[in-house]
């Protein structure tokens, strides 16, 4: 098992998939967190902050983003890698089918799909936890909204800080930048929610 994991990591290193994985991770986690921000704020602003509704909508969105992320990334990466492999075959005048290049190509597609599928789902699932605790009467209902919002904003900050670390910028400023995007979105959604169609 360990040998298989080591080999898989070697294939990932050979395929150079680390960069695009990081991009998929941040982009899709951001999508997941912002989707839940929209659901929770929209539900609260229109007076439908029932935990069952929030969890139901959140799970649906989480699952849809996971499936679309996984399948979309797999098909996209697969097409991209196949094209690259074909060009390499032409340059090498060799099949390359049973070489590390073909295996690395496949491994890269699977890895990108896993990252793209799980990151939005996880980012979307975390804000639902306070509502789940409320539903099972483990936590008081008034706590769900603020804790959930805090967890979303914390996620955005952490994602921004992660980007700052990658680009070797000020981590705090990078985190605050991403947080600002979330706050602006929150204000807009809350403002629109105030216009109730009755």
């Amino acid at each position, binding site marked *: 098992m360990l040998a298989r994991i080591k080999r898989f990591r070697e294939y990932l290193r050979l395929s150079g998939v680390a960069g695009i994985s990081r991009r998929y991770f941040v982009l899709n986690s951001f999508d997941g967190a912002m989707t839940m921000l929209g659901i929770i704020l929209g539900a609260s602003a229109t007076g439908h902050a029932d935990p069952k509704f929030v969890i139901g909508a959140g799970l649906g969105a989480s699952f849809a983003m996971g499936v679309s992320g996984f399948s979309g990334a797999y098909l996209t990466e697969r097409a991209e890698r196949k094209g690259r492999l074909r060009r390499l075959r032409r*340059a090498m005048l060799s099949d390359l089918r049973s070489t590390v290049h073909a295996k690395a190509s496949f491994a890269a597609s699977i890895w990108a799909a896993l990252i793209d599928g799980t990151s939005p789902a996880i980012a979307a699932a975390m804000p639902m936890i306070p509502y789940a605790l409320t539903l099972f009467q483990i936590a008081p209902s008034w706590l769900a909204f603020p804790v959930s919002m805090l967890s979303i904003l914390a996620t955005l900050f952490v994602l921004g800080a992660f980007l700052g670390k990658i680009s070797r910028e000020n981590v705090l400023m990078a985190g605050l930048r991403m947080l600002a995007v979330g706050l602006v979105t929150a204000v807009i959604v809350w403002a629109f929610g105030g216009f109730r169609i009755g």
Partner: protein
Amino acid sequence: MEYCLVATQIRKILLDVLKPHEPPIHELASKLGSLPGISEVSISLAEIDQSTESIKVSIDGTDISIDTVRKSLEELGAVIHSIDQVSVAKRAK
């Protein structure tokens, strides 16, 4: 024509190899160096283009198997263009 079938061992070969940019030559050398019967591997870059590199691979050992070397290279996506030099010694009884 008669052939003298005396058991021999390949002690040194020099290969002209075409490979993609990945894996880099130090990894290729390490992979070849780990094969049985090989004691030393030396690789130098001869030419490079957008997708491929031509390299010279010099292998020293006690009993080099060309088939094993070829398979190892092919697994890494490399192709032997030619065997440019070979040294062989009689197998010790």
